[in-house]
């Protein structure tokens, strides 16, 4: 099934089609949420900010060029994130692992067991990666080293370490999804 272009979705939304709103949320909630998590470092704040972003952006659609809907949504999201920061007077701590912001801060016992299982699976999948990518991820995840330290330890430029991290994670994600399929 082909997806409607943004212009068509917006026209449907403006005419009161509730399915269009659902489609807009489905299309953009992932990237917007990731963006907000990146800026706010807090899962719940990012969810609240996502809600504010979509409400405010969709209330002001008359001024938006449908061809730039994505950019518009991200602009509103950015300003919401800054507003949330000012309100919360959130101070970013340099060594707060991103994983803490991504997971539920108060998991129940079942979730803990699931997470332990996931960690075991992740270790197994890590062995399937090329050596360079595996080493960067291993030192990052299991030794908690900073990227600059990893680059120094491996004797490679920082950008190379980052690129290996990126490629390795993409491959790991693919392997993870395949193993859960």
């Amino acid at each position, binding site marked *: 099934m082909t997806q409607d272009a943004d212009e068509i979705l917006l026209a449907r939304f403006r005419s009161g089609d509730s399915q269009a709103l659902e489609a807009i949320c489905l299309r953009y909630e992932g*990237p917007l949420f*990731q963006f907000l*998590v990146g800026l706010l470092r807090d899962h719940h704040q990012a*969810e609240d900010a996502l809600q504010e972003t979509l*409400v405010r952006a969709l209330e002001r659609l008359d001024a938006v060029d449908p061809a730039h809907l994505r950019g518009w949504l991200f602009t509103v999201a950015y300003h919401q994130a800054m507003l949330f920061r000012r309100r919360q007077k959130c101070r970013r701590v340099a*060594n707060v692992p991103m994983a803490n912001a*991504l997971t539920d801060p108060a998991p129940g016992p079942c979730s803990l067991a699931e997470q332990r299982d996931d960690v075991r699976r992740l270790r197994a999948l890590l062995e399937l990666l090329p050596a360079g990518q595996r080493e960067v991820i291993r030192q990052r995840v299991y030794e908690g080293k900073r990227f600059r330290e990893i680059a120094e330890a491996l004797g490679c430029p920082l950008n190379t370490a*980052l690129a290996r991290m990126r490629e390795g*994670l993409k491959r790991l*994600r693919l392997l993870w999804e395949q193993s859960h399929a």
Partner: protein
Amino acid sequence: MPDEPSDSLVGQALLYVSGELDPGQEAAFERLVESDQAAREALCQAVALSGALAGRPVVPNPAYRQKVRERLLRARTAHRGKGHRSAAWALVGAVAAAVVWVVLRPTGPPGPEAPEQPPVVATPSPEPQEAVAEDDHSLDVANLWVEMSEPTHLEKACDEEARRKARAADWPRLSRGDDPKASSGLPAEQAAIED
């Protein structure tokens, strides 16, 4: 199609996400994502990759969608209410304008006391033009009323009337070619300036 970020941008985003940029670099990256779509996409990728590292996709709780729907519906209902109120005020304004027009329009046909018609006059007229002429007449009356209420306007009106009469008196003479300057094609006023 979203702007595909470069490897170096994604690398920078990964450092930002992991808290390894110094404060100046961090502020610079945040200024970038304020408006640069490729940088924004890079940040999304960095967070998604970090989520993969944690073994969990970075997605919101879908319950937020219902809240968005409810708030937008409330906003739409409120806006429709405002729209109805604006329409009501517009109607009141239109009625007021109609009342003013009825008060100012003349009650009888134009007589000798009516202001003089301008020299260039439209050829008389099928019915629609009569209605237009009547509207123009009432507007002239309204404008005249406003001007009469200001003393300086009254003086200016007298001066202008005197000048107009002088021009009207000169016109037949000029059209017969009595004035040498008129034969050169110069209007009387310009001739007066050059004297």
